[in-house]
């Protein structure tokens, strides 16, 4: 290596540093092993893609998707009430647009290239999906709604920065409205929970249980950190037992044991039982995530609060917890993503969430054996949902950091 005189190498013209060839040489053929890998992987990739394409265009029978599109999204929700679901999606789109705009009011550019590409892809999907034309127009309108409210949110947010504090109130209120719209009652015809299904039920269960688990989860996290031994033992026992058993056992506890625990004659809704189990389950995991956040808050914060005359309860609520929760936001989003995926297990107990409804579609004699098509379709929905959430959480994390 070092035998070559330096003068020789310095007179040699520099090898191509830019351009496609240089890129290929650097990234795909840097040495014999890398070249071998490239060839083998490339061949495999080409073969599987070709195989997939031939399957998708010849053998696959995609008719099962458009024929059951409403089932995948809302289950057996009555057709006459579909407008309520659209209203919910509209409210959520407006609110998320507004929050996005207000949170990123300090950014130089609201719609950077990646976001525009993302919206372009979403718009293309909205136009191309095999739904009736009015639905496609509605979807496009929803996308426009998000963009418009983000723009408005940014404008308003720049004028009135204190508006950000009202966002959480808006979300809380909208949640009540969403619950009302889904379930009915007070002026709207009620819809039985047996008729809820598809993606709507998946999201309903995960959002409801992650929200319900917050009080218990935070109490458990504080209990685990507590100096009082009895509280600590109880918290540790609860958290470790829940985390040590599979979710499906907890769902069985909800379905078979909780009815026995209640006074005779009370029969709870199956969906409610499932949500109780999911809530207990996520409370244990949330407790561990919040504990991570609590540990990251320096002791000096609590001591300073004590020195200012706050007692330990107030110091925890006003000083330590807000900081701990802010630190735990990314892990809580991660937990929510896995909760969305875990709700598929409720389908094993007979709920018609997205995977459960797919099983009943596949049991329909006219669609028998169409596993690959259906699973690809709902897999894509889950993937887009979860991937978008993790992207969003990464952005949120960045923006929460820059405000300091």
């Amino acid at each position: 290596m070092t035998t070559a005189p330096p003068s020789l190498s310095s007179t040699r013209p520099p090898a191509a540093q830019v351009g496609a060839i240089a890129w290929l040489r650097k990234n795909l053929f840097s040495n014999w092993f890398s070249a071998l890998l490239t060839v083998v992987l490339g061949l495999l990739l080409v073969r599987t893609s070709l195989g997939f394409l031939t399957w998708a265009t010849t053998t696959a029978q995609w008719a099962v998707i458009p024929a059951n599109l409403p089932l995948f999204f809302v289950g057996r929700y009555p057709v006459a009430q579909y407008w309520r679901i659209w209203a919910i999606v509209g409210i959520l789109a407006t609110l998320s647009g507004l929050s996005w705009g207000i949170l990123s009011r300090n950014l130089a550019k609201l719609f950077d290239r990646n976001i525009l590409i993302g919206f372009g892809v979403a718009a293309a999907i909205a136009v191309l999906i095999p739904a009736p034309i009015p639905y496609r127009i509605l979807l496009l309108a929803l996308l426009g709604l998000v963009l418009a409210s983000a723009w408005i949110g940014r404008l308003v947010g720049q004028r009135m920065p204190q508006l950000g504090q009202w966002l959480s109130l808006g979300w809380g209120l909208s949640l009540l409205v969403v619950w009302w719209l889904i379930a009915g009652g007070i002026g709207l015809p009620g819809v039985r929970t047996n008729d809820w299904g598809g993606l709507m039920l998946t999201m309903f269960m995960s959002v409801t249980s992650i929200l319900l688990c917050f009080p218990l989860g935070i109490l458990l996290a504080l209990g685990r950190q507590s100096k009082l031994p009895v509280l600590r033992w109880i918290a540790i026992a609860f958290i470790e037992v829940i985390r040590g058993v599979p979710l499906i056992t907890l769902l069985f506890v909800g379905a078979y044991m909780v009815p026995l625990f209640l006074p005779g004659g009370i029969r709870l809704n199956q969906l409610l039982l499932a949500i109780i189990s999911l809530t207990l389950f996520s409370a244990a995991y949330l407790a561990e995530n919040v504990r991570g956040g609590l540990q990251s808050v320096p002791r000096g914060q609590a001591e300073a609060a004590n020195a200012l005359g706050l007692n330990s309860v107030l110091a925890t609520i006003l000083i330590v917890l807000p900081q701990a929760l802010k630190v735990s936001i990314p892990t809580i989003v991660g937990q929510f993503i896995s909760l969305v995926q875990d709700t598929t297990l409720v389908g094993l107990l007979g709920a018609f969430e997205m995977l459960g409804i797919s099983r009943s579609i596949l049991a329909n004699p006219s669609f028998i054996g169409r596993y690959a098509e259906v699973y690809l379709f709902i897999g894509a929905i889950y993937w887009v949902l979860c991937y978008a959430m993790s992207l969003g959480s990464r952005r949120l994390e960045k923006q929460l950091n820059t405000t300091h």
Partner: protein
Amino acid sequence: MTLSNDGSEKIPFWRDDRYVRIAVQAIVVLILMAIFSFFSGNMFRNLEQQGRQFNFSFLQQGAGFNIGETVIPYETNSPYYWAFVVSLVNTLRLILVGFIATTIIGVVAGIASFSDNWLLRKLNLAYVEIVRNTPLLLQLYVWYFAVFFGFSDKGTVAELPGSILVSKKGIVIPWSNGSPIAWISAAALLIGAIAAFFIWRRRIKIMEEQGASGQREFVALLSLGIVGLLLFLFGLGWQFPRIAASGNVEGGLRMSLEYGSMLAGLAFYTGAFIAEIVRAGIQSVSKGQWEAAKALGLQPASSMRLVVFPQAMRVIIPSLSSQYMNLAKNSSLALAIGYPDIFATSQTSLNQTGRAVEVILLIMAIYLTISLIISVIMNLLNKTVQFTER
């Protein structure tokens, strides 16, 4: 500071920390006891009304159901406790093989994310992102219904690379024929591997301490390797599955489609999470370590193996333990595709006997024990890794 001898104003007891602490704990215990007695009272009352009792005597009765695949003998009228044991063995068979498979997949995928090959990095990224962002249950369905049933469609036998045969009756992989010679060869391979390990250790030691060339040991290692390779290829009596004239598959090791899908699903799912842990662990090793290794003249592969990876292990092992626990817990999803694991058996027992409380307590105890064992073993492993640090 002014002292006053009557300044010790008596603090009211509700603000005295000593009393408050005891009172809070007492109240919490009282509340929990009240809830517990309310629930258990209701439970006994409800059970009594339905003419049921709370005891585990049903475990002695005949189970009366079949278990699809068993390793230890089981008959339809064996008692319930035996059905639980048989299916627990099925669970252990799944998760132990799963641990090995998922570790290999995860470590390979984690290291691959540092490859200088662009295609490998992107494929690896695609694998991790697809697997982590879709539900495990869906993946298990895909493996079972779409992949393995898809291969064995129309009752034919499909051939995969590596002479693996897939048909409705199961997945058959090449395996030893189990003759005495094969067993002797396997034992010889094991002994050879242990010997090679010690020779390798000794070689490094004398090279470091005495500055010896280590050539003799190298020759010994090389000859051990050649003997091992020959034993592996010819001594084990490999049996390649083939399609007999009758259309059945002969030879090799047969796994049921259920077992194969569970194993593949769990291993690839957990592997993606392990890959992320491995990646984070390797990233946690400071850049200076890479540079120092390079300065000492080590190739990238050697720096990874000798310098970076051992240090990354300290970060990796603790998080690995929770992934193994997840794999063990997720094995309960076998229920969904009909692999007779402990959870599927307990559900059948629950439906047959109606002993919901007993069966659920039993199954929770079993999974807690499995989680506990994994955590104890991983803690021991963690200690050895941390110890080699200095």
